[in-house]
């Protein structure tokens, strides 16, 4: 069953099909929020809110609409509402507190967050679109108003810039 078929069934009242979508998208959405704001409890809460909205506003889903695009639109709105209520805690350069016992992976995660926080918005956005939303070049081009060759170049430069920032932080 495709995402679109599952969501259409949900919109028609077959709410159990929402579980399929939840299982497919929970990890992607959790990380989508984590890379915008490093607090894990918060990211879990925001992910939960996305699915609550999917259920609550299921009637607004139009048959044939690409579910991935629709659900990430919901996620962006959820995050936008979060920012309105928490303007102070939006600093992506904040280092998440992992306590005393973090391992190498956690350290990488911290460094990566700091690097992402320092990445210019145009690059961060294209990384999030390609990595977390798994969009095609054409879809990213439509969102950012870029040609496909330019999307590829921007993705390349974003990864390159992220690498430079990461290595700089790692060497400090």
């Amino acid at each position, binding site marked *: 069953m495709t995402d679109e078929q599952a969501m259409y069934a949900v919109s028609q009242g077959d709410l159990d099909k929402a579980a399929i979508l939840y299982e497919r998208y929970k990890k992607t959405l959790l990380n989508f929020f984590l890379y915008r704001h490093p607090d894990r409890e918060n990211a879990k809460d925001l992910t939960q809110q996305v699915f609550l909205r999917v259920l*609550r506003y299921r009637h607004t889903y139009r048959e044939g609409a690409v579910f991935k695009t629709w659900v990430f639109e919901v996620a962006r709105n959820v995050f936008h509402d979060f920012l309105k209520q928490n303007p102070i805690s939006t600093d992506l350069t904040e280092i998440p507190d992992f306590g005393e016992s973090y391992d190498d992976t956690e350290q990488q995660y911290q460094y990566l967050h700091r690097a992402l926080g320092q990445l210019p918005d145009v690059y961060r956005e294209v990384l999030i679109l390609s990595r977390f939303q798994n969009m095609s070049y054409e879809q990213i081009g439509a969102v950012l108003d870029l040609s496909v060759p330019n999307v590829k*170049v921007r993705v390349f430069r974003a990864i390159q810039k992220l690498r430079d920032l990461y290595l700089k932080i790692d060497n400090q």
Partner: protein
Amino acid sequence: MKEDIITDYLLGQLTDAEMSVFEQQLLADPTLRQEVEELRSIWQTLQSTEKEPDTAMDTAFYKALEGEKKLKEKTPSQPFVAIQKTKFTNLSYYARYAAAVAGIGVAFWMGRQTAPVQVEYRNVVAQNEASAPVTAVKEVTIPKELTENIATPNTAPANMMQEIASLRREMKMTQELVILGLLKDQSASERLKGINYVATLEQPKPAVIEALIKTLRSDESLNVRLSTIETLERFRQETQVRTSLVAQLEKTDEPLEQTALIESLVRMRVRESLPVFDKLQKDEKTDEGVRLLARNSASELAMLTE
């Protein structure tokens, strides 16, 4: 340039034939090979540091799903879409219009008043100059002797830190006095300015919170009250804030204010507001859009706080 091909390679978009050609190029060009290897490594790190959802998240989702199913069984023929597209859309229309008007005011005062206060902190701490324009913000007056003490270059670091801390306290106290004054001002725009000042404080004194609550209860301007709700939500951990928002929802009959309060109370997860939601959804005098929102929000809040 090979930028687009490298991107295709990293994102796994190359065909077998293209991959073969690209790998030949990598073998022939050590500089390119190193560059691509580093980029591949960071791209993989980005993927490998992704977090897994935990069981608490799953439990919460399935509980919410069950709740939604129960709600659907209770109201199988509820014309949700029809109501939402008529009354509630109208309400949203007004809300958007009012929000835009309020937003212009908020943006104006945030830009004009809030930023300079933060800049003043940096000036004092970083420059340590006697001439630092600490009093450039018209409402904030810093005692002259404090700025002079900080300016002394030979002051011992410990003393310096104490004095900076003292200056910070003084600034905060002054800010709070300014806020209390602004909230009592006759002009609604001045009161909005005061509310926006509060939004910049992390831990305002109880007197400031109390003044905000008083504004919520008695201010005649709807825009001021709407801004107050938004700001009060930031201090959700205070019991009196939660209580006062519930009390205001019970009292007001303004649809926009009711909408803002309901949405805030759900976000704040104030379970105590459920009886008021219930009362609103049953009250025929209440705006139909608000009644629908109260009904849906009651089920959402019940699920979230179970």
